[in-house]
C-alpha cells in the first residue's frame, strides 16, 4: 500500500533524526517527571485520596508533555524549507499526517512508560496489577491527542506566537478525550475493571477513529503551502 510505505519512510526519517539529536524525547521525559514532583508537592494528598486524583494528575502531565512534543513536531521541516521538498514530492499528504502522528505517539508512549510506574512509586499506590489496563486507556487517549494535536500543530505552523496558539486551539477540542480517559482510569482504579465506563471507552475509540480518518482526508488542505 502506497500510503503505508510513505508513512514508514517519513517515520523512520523522523526517528533517525530524533535518535541522533534526542532533543524532543529528553525534554519531554524530564518535563513529565518534573510535573510529577510539582504535583506531588502541591497536592500532598492523604493516601486514600491519591487513587482518586491519580488519573487526573497523570493525564495532565501527559497532556502538557505531549504539547511540548507537538510544538517540535515540524521543526525538521521548517529548516531549509524541507516542508516544500515534501509537498513537492509524490508523498501522499495523508502519509505525512500518519507519520507525524505516530512519531509523536511513540515519543509520548515512551515518556508514559516511564512516568506511570514512577507515579506509582512516588505516590506509593498499591494497584500494580491494574497498570496494563490503565496503560490501554492511556494509549487510546494518547492516540486521540496525537491525531488532533498533529492537525493543530500543522495548522498553526505558520502562525505568530505558534507555541501559545497551539494549546489554546487544541485543548478545548480535547475535552472529550480528557473526560473519557480520566473516567475510565478512575473506574479501573476504583473497582478493578471498566464496568459502566465502557461507554467512555467507546467514546474514546470513536474520537480516535473519526479524527484519524478526518486527518488523513483533510491533511492535504491543512499542510498546503
Amino acid at each position, binding site marked *: 500500500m502506497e500510503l503505508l510505505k510513505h508513512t514508514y519512510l517519513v517515520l523512520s526519517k523522523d526517528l533517525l533524526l530524533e535518535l541522533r539529536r534526542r532533543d524532543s524525547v529528553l525534554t519531554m521525559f524530564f518535563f513529565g517527571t518534573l510535573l510529577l514532583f510539582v504535583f506531588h508537592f502541591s497536592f500532598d494528598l492523604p493516601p486514600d485520596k491519591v487513587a482518586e486524583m491519580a488519573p487526573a494528575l497523570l493525564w495532565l502531565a501527559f497532556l502538557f508533555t505531549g504539547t511540548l512534543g507537538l510544538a517540535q513536531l515540524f521543526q525538521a521541516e521548517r529548516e531549509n524549507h524541507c516542508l516544500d521538498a515534501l509537498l513537492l514530492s509524490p508523498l501522499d499528504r495523508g502519509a505525512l499526517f500518519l507519520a507525524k502522528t505516530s512519531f509523536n505517539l511513540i515519543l509520548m508512549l515512551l515518556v508514559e512508560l516511564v512516568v506511570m510506574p514512577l507515579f506509582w512509586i512516588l505516590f506509593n499506590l498499591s494497584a500494580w496489577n491494574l497498570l496494563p489496563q490503565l496503560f490501554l486507556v492511556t494509549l487510546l487517549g494518547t492516540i486521540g491527542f496525537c491525531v488532533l494535536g498533529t492537525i493543530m500543530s500543522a495548522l498553526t505552523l505558520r502562525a505568530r506566537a505558534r507555541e501559545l*496558539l497551539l494549546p489554546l486551539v487544541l485543548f478545548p477540542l480535547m475535552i472529550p478525550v480528557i473526560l473519557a480517559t480520566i473516567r475510565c482510569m478512575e473506574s479501573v482504579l476504583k473497582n478493578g475493571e471498566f464496568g459502566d465506563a465502557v461507554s467512555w471507552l467507546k467514546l474514546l475509540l470513536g474520537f480516535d477513529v473519526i479524527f484519524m480518518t478526518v486527518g488523513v482526508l483533510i491533511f492535504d488542505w491543512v499542510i*498546503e503551502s
Partner: protein
Amino acid sequence: MAASTQPVEKRKGILGGLAVVAVVIGLYWSLAVAPPDAYQGEVQRIMYLHLPSILTAYLSYFLVFVGSAMYLWKREKRDDLLAHAAAELGVLFTALTIIEGSIWGKPTWGVWWTWDARLTLTAILLLIYAGYLMLRSLIDDESRAASAAAILGIIGFLDIPLIHMSVYWWRTLHQPPSILRPDKTPWETVHPSLLTALAISFVGFILLYFYLLSLRYRVGEMRQEIKALRLERGA
C-alpha cells in the same frame, strides 16, 4: 459599483427594520403578555431570551462549518467571508448565552455558575470559536489564514457532538437529579401565550442575526476590495 449597492443597502435596511419590529413585539409579549411560569415564576421569562440565543449560536457554528467546507472545496472568497462573519457572531451570541444562563441560574440554583451540562458546553464552544478567531488573526498570509480557519471550522463542528456527549455523561454522573432539572425544557405547563412569546422572540432573533450577519459580511467584502485596490495601486 456605488449605484448597484442602493438596492442592497435598501434590502439591508428593510431586514434591519423588520428585525427591530419583531424584537420589540417579542419583548413586549414575553415581558408583559405571557403569564409567569407555574414553577419558576417571573424568572422563566429569561428563557425567551436564552433559547433563541442558543439557537443563533448553533446556527452560527453550522454556518461556519458550511462556509469552511465550501471554501476548502471551491476556494471562493465569499464562503470564507461568510464563515468569518458567522464565527464572530457565533462568539457574541455564545457569550450572551452564557451570561443569560448564569443570571437564570442565580435565582434557580442560588449560584451564579454551576457546572451544569449546558453551561459547560456553551463555555467550551465559546473557547473553540474564540480560538478560531485567534487563529485567523495570528496568521499573516491571507489565504493561509482562511484555509487554516476553515480546517478548524470543520473540525470544531465535528467535535461538537462528542463534546456534547462527554459533558452530559460527565454531568449526569455528579449532579443528583433535582426537581428543577436545569436541562429539562422549561415549558412543561404549556400555556399558549408562553409559546407565542417564544415563537416571536425566535423570529426576532433570527431576523436580527441575519441582519447583523449581512452587515458583517459586507464589511469583510469591502475590506477585501480595499486591500485589492491598495495592492493594485502599490504594485
